[in-house]
Every structure is written in C-alpha cells, then in structure tokens.
C-alpha cells in the first residue's frame, strides 16, 4: 500500500509511456483513490449500486458539483440501469442524461477529472471511469471594470473563471477562426490556461514562441497574470511592463484582431496581451469610440500628461536649485518669497510631499472605502494647508506635486502608471545632483532604454523607432477609422488589411 504511489512518480519522471491503468475490481480502485485522497474531506466518495446490485462508486468534490442535478437526474437514472446497460457495445457512450461525458481507463486522468470538479463514476467489473461534467462553481457575476473604466465602451470585465472569460470572448468573436491553445500551469495548483489567437491573422511564429515559453513555466502557482509576465519576460531589470494586462474584453478583442495573443489563466480576472509596444499602454478603448479630432486631442493630452508626470518635479528641483535665471521675471519673486520660509533644500522638500502623496495613494488602495474617504480628507488637509503654514514646504511645490499627481492619473494603464512614478523619483535624484543636465541625461537614458527593450522579440518603442509611417498615425493622434485600414505591424500579422475582401 505504501509503495503504491511509486509507479506514479516514476511515470512522471520517465515520461508518459508508463500509465497506470484502472482495475476492473471496484475495491482496488476504491483503495487506490482512498490513498490518493487521504485527508481530503471535501472529496466525497459515495458508494451505491445499480439496479442489478452491481456496486458503484461516485466521487465528486463538494462545492464544485451541482449536487441538485446529481441527486435529481443522474443518480436515480443510474440506479435504474443494469450494469450491462450503462455502456453501449463499443464502450464509447454512456446512457446517462449528461451533456459532457468522457470515459477513460487511466487512473491519473480520473484523478485530474475529480480535482477539476467533475463527477466520476466507477462501476464494478469495468476498468474505466466515467467523468460527468456537472460542475457548478461558485463565482461572481460579470461586473463593471474596476481599474479600466471608460465612458462609451462595453461595461463588462473578465472574472476569475477562465471558462466564463473564454465564453465572453466567444460571444464577442463569433467566428471559427478564434482558436485557443490550452494547457495547465502551476506545478501544484494545476490551473487551466489558454492562449487565444485568431487563425489567419496571428503570426504562427509568435504563437509558437509564446506557447512554448508559457508551457515551460515551472512554478508552484500562477497568482495573477503578472506572474506569467515576470516569469517569461526577457529583460528582468526593466521597470517597464513587457505585456499588457487588461480586464476589458473589448480591449482583448481589438488586440486579437491586430494579430496579438491573449493569455488567459484560471483564477485571475486579467488577461495578458502580447506582443505590445510602449504606446499600447497610452491608448484607451475610448479613443476609438468617437470623433477622431476630439480623441486625437485626448491622446495629445495624455502624452503631455506623461511628460509632466515624468519631469515636472525634477524640473522644479533643477530650476530652483541651479537655474534661477530660467524662471520668468514675473514668477521669480513670488516663487522666491514662497521658498524663503522653507528650511530644506528643494529635493528634500519635494521628497517630503511626494512621499506623503505616495503613502496616501498606497493607503487608500488597501483600506476599506469608508476609511479611505477620511484618509483622503486628512491627507488633503495635511498636504494642502498645514505643511505650508508650518513652513515645511512652499506653496509652489504643492502645485507642482498636485499637477504631477493629476498628470500621472492620466496614464490609462495601471502598470505603466506605477513605472512612470518609479522613474520620476530617479529623475528627481538626478535633477538634484546635476540640475537640468541631469534631467536631460535621464530623458536620454530613458529613450535609449526604451529603444533597446523588446516585447516578444518585437521592438518596444516601435512606431517611433524603428519608424513606421502607417503605425505612427495612430500614436500621438487618432486618425479616422477608414484611414486605419492597415493592421499595426507590431505583431507581424499575416493578414495586413482590416476588413473582408470585397
């Protein structure tokens, strides 16, 4: 008994040739399963018998199975059958009122089926297991997106269940060309995962590379979609996200249609899109849902916000510390007056306020909403008035930090916003040592870094460098839809033109 699991282990090691098969004696199967599921009280092992008294074993996981259905429709039907009547002549189908049934004679397959929530039936005298899909998992309903809100687009987001997520996608793309490559991830958690792609658009090379990379992940569990990104990213030092995580199905659809891949993992409401460029993180689905001129302005505003969020506090530090002559004459005296009471050098002044703001931001994420509101009030008061009155910071820095914060909220992607925030601090330190030259050097390094980065072998800074004219249209501005006939070249799509051939 003790060494029963050794063959299983060795089969794992030696490859899939050595498969443990089921016995046709129910008792043998029962004791094997009992060993396997020792100390697993949630796995119910129910003995019953058929009409002719043949002993039968029903195994299911409590909480993953639709108990009502099982009790009302399946077990009574089963008990009315003779053991000879359960299967047809070829042992291919089962006479049970269930839509999804599979029959196998492998022990491990049966175990996997049980663990994934299927109800498995063993009948004495048959060396097979019947897996019935009567799964009913507790899951939350599809709700509004929480971190990627928009105005006019669809108001639904992915949820934790991969099956629901895939069904959402299928509902949106009613086409047989939408394909999924499925596999399991997590050495212990055995999570279901899928790569969605569109046949005929997605470049098979990219698909193959990604499939291989993700399949080869050797890790206990995949907590969130970002784990995948961290485990397969080429450059581990860069703060920039390599792939785009989104909770919006419409975003996934539009990216799939550009030839990109979407990675779904069970247990996370986020989907990873690859390959992407830096500018994908600056686009919002709203951009495409209205007049092109208006939304072009929005785009420009966002890029302006990006630059402000990166450089404004650093510029303040540099100018105040080194380059007083850059300040316009009319601003010079009010600025100097407000700085005159502050005992700290500008870098400390900015750090005090920036850190306070970051703490406030971090605190409000974790706190329950009703406390978070009062934190906002306290923080606002402290930052807003008291710090100036006490002479710890100047009036101007409050404006600078506030504008920076607002600008950084403009960045539509959460990961990118965090990255920008992180880089802002580096630029600030450089500015405090080298002045405006430090800011410029930082900018140069930043661009150099972005140019070197790759997302799945594709240049990260693509339409800018290497320059691509037709892609570039959709970067700073948003052209009219009919002028965007060509799919972006980021994912090297097979079919380069949008729309059918007419």
């Amino acid at each position, binding site marked *: 008994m003790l060494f029963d699991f050794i063959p299983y282990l060795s089969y794992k090691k030696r490859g899939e040739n050595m498969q443990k098969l089921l016995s046709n004696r129910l008792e043998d199967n029962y004791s094997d399963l009992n060993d396997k599921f020792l100390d697993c009280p949630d796995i119910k092992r129910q003995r019953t018998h058929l009409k002719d008294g043949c002993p039968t074993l029903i195994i299911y996981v409590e909480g993953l199975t639709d108990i009502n259905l099982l009790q009302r429709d399946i077990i009574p039907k089963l008990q009315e059958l003779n053991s000879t009547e359960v299967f047809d002549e070829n042992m291919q189908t089962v006479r049970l009122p269930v839509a999804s049934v599979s029959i196998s004679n492998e022990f491990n397959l049966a175990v996997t089926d049980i663990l994934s929530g299927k109800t498995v039936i063993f009948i004495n005298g048959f060396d097979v297991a019947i897996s019935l899909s009567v799964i009913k998992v507790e899951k939350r309903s599809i709700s509004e997106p929480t971190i990627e809100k928009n105005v006019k687009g669809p108001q639904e987001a992915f949820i934790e269940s991969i099956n629901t997520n895939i069904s959402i996608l299928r509902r949106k793309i009613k086409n047989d060309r939408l394909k999924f490559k499925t596999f399991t991830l997590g050495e212990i958690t055995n999570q279901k995962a899928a790569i969605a792609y569109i046949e005929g658009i997605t470049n098979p090379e990219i698909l193959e590379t990604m499939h291989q990379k993700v399949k080869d992940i050797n890790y206990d569990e995949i907590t969130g979609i970002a784990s995948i990104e961290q485990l397969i990213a080429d450059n581990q030092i860069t703060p920039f996200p390599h792939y785009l995580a989104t909770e919006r199905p419409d975003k996934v659809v539009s990216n799939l249609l550009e030839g990109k891949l979407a990675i779904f993992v069970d247990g996370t409401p986020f989907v990873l899109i690859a390959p992407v460029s830096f500018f994908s993180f600056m686009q919002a689905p709203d951009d495409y849902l209205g007049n092109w001129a208006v939304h072009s302005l929005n785009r420009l505003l966002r890029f302006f916000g990006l630059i402000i969020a990166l450089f404004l506090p650093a510029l303040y530090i540099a100018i105040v*510390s*080194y380059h*007083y002559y850059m300040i316009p004459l009319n601003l*010079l005296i009010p*600025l100097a007056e407000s700085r005159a009471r502050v005992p700290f*050098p500008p*870098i400390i002044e900015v750090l005090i306020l920036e850190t306070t703001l970051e703490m406030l931001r971090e605190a409000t994420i974790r706190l329950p909403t009703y406390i978070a509101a009062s934190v906002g009030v306290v923080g606002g008061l402290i930052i807003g008035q008291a710090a100036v009155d006490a002479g710890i910071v100047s009036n101007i820095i409050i404006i600078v930090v506030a504008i920076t914060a607002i600008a950084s909220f403009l960045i539509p992607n959460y990961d990118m916003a965090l990255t920008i925030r992180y880089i802002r601090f580096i630029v600030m330190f450089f500015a405090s*040592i080298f002045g405006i030259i430090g800011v410029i050097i930082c900018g140069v390094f930043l661009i150099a870094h972005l140019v070197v980065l790759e997302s799945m072998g594709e240049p990260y800074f693509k339409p800018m460098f290497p320059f691509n004219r037709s892609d570039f249209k959709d970067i700073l501005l948003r052209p009219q839809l009919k002028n965007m006939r060509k799919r972006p070249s980021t994912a090297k799509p097979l079919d380069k033109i949008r729309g059918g051939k007419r």
Partner: protein
Amino acid sequence: MKKLLKMVTILIVCSLLLSGCWDQRVFEQVGFTLSYGIEESQDGKLLITSAYPVIGGVEKGSVDIITTKSSLTRGGRNNMRLMTPKLIEGGKVQQVLISDSLAKKGIHDLLEIFQRDVTLPAIAFVVITEGSPGELLKKANEFKSKPRVSFYIYQLLENNVKLSNIPNTKVFDFDINFFAPGLDPIVPMVKVEDEQIKITGCALFSDDKMSGRLNNKESNLLIGLMNQLNNSDFIFSDPKFADKDGDKQGVAVTMFKPKRKISINFDEEGIPSVEINMKYKCNIDEFEWDDTMDPKVQTDLEKTFGDNLTTMSNEIIKKLQTVNCDPIGIGDMIRAKYYDYWKSIDWKEMYPKADIKVSTKVEIGNVGIIK
C-alpha cells in the same frame, strides 16, 4: 543587478547628503540683480549701482539698492557681495542703465562682460539715462504707486518697444550693430521727471560712443525707416491741420507697418546717392469733424501727410549724418551689394557725405466710423 543597486544607492545618498554642495544656487538664497546702473565717479572710476528685490524681508515689495565704486564692471558685483546677505548674481539682469556722460566716452567695454560670462543674459535692455542711473534707481524706488523699480522700467520699455516708440535694443542687438561694419546702434533714453520715469527718445551712437539724440517723434519715424515699425500712433502737429475753430492743431493717425524700398546709386565721384521710398498706410483717429469721406479730401490729406513725413525724415537723416550714426544700415547694404566699392572707401568718412533722400507716400486706409 547588484551593481545597479549599488549605483542607485550611491545616487540617492549623494542627492540627500550633497545637496547644497557643488554649484547649487537655491534661488531664495540668491540676490538676483535686476538692474545695473553704470556711471562715472568723480575720480574717473565706475560707480556701479545694483538693484535686487529683497526676498523674505520685513517689508514686502522692497528693493535693495547698493552703489559701489570699482574700476571694472565685475568689481561692482564683488564689492556688493561683501555687503549683502545674499549671493549677488546677475543671471536675471533686465536692464543695464548707463549715464549719458559715460556713454559719450564709449560703452562697449562695459557690456563686454555680458559676452564673456554665460550666466549674464544677453537679452537685458541697454538704456541711456539722462543724469545718474544710480539716482534714477533710488528715486524710482521711492515711487509709491509704481511696481518695483526694475519691473517698472522693464514694463515701460517693453510696452514702448511694442508701440515702436523706442528701438528694441538688447545687449546682443547692441553688440551686433556695434560689430557690423555698416551699422550703428541706437539706444532708448530715459530720465526721471516728477515721480515718473519718462522715455525721452533715443540716443544715437557712432561706433560705441553716443554722439547725438532724437526725440520721441523722431525716433518713431527712424524706426519706420529702419523697417522695424509695427503699429504706432503718430500725431501730425502742424497749424496746417487746424480745424475751423483753431483749437485742434493736428491729426492723430495709427500707422501700420510701412513698405520700404531703398535704391543705391553712385555718382561720378563715387559718392553714393541713396533713395529711400517709404509707403505708409494709416487710419485717421482724430481730426476735425469734416468730409474726410470725400476721396478728394483724402487725396489732399495723403499728400500733406506724405510731404510732412518726407520733410521730417530728411531732417532725421541730416541729423544722423551729422553725428555719423547709421542705424538704417545703408553701409551694410552697400557692403552686401557693392563689396569692391565698400573695400575702396572708409564708410565712416563717406557716410556724412552721402546723398540720402527720403520720399514718403501715405495712404489713408480708414477714416473711422464717422458719417
């Protein structure tokens, strides 16, 4: 990765511990001079006056004005640093005020420091004061109803440059015009007059020495001849324009950017004869109540305006030739077009002899909504 961590740590530590070292100039600790006044002291040295706004002082809006004696412009700053709580810096200088008596001896050497020291702005105005600039700054500082003195002078100059009353002479303009062989700089002049600083016209320079001056009306026209006039208000004050009652003795017009044509010829002796054709367009703003709608009246007026301006312009040219100042750049044009000729002459000697004629035409665009 470890290397990166080390670098980042060093960076953060440096920025926290070393801020305040190196060449950091936190601006509330800097006394940024906004106006420099340069004049001659009795013993032949320079008297340098500097005005910088007091930051964090007891009284709001106050300006500290310090005068020191030195033989160099830079020496003034060094002496001031020995007296003030703040680090005196010149990075934000808005005006350099130079006394007219000093200007007559040549001022380029005084401005030389603006070319050497990169921190000094080349966009500061050069201004000639009638009398001592130090006195002007001190007096202007006591005006209760005016902004801080440097701001006052700056705004005054800016507005009048826009109205084409004075030339836009910044330090770099002065330098360019000084170094160009066929060009001479002109510089606005100011003086203090009953609780005001008043623009009194412009100073004419021959090389870098002040050699003459023009009044406000004349400088307005000169700027027109220099082709730098935008819109300007001009008043023809002549008894010829008197209305029936005789109280209004003139016409007020708005003049627009003129068209200028210069043709240069040489007579047998090699003396250049220059014709400057100016074509102004103007709107009538104030005149007597009459039939200005009538085309014939308009043509007459246009002719009278043109004659009036021609006479005045020719007078200005005469003046310029007497003081040997060529701000229009006729020499520059000859140098560009007739270089062989230019090499054969000394322009400074030739310019007063040159035959320069201005003829002006005026076209009335609009007589107002009068009917």
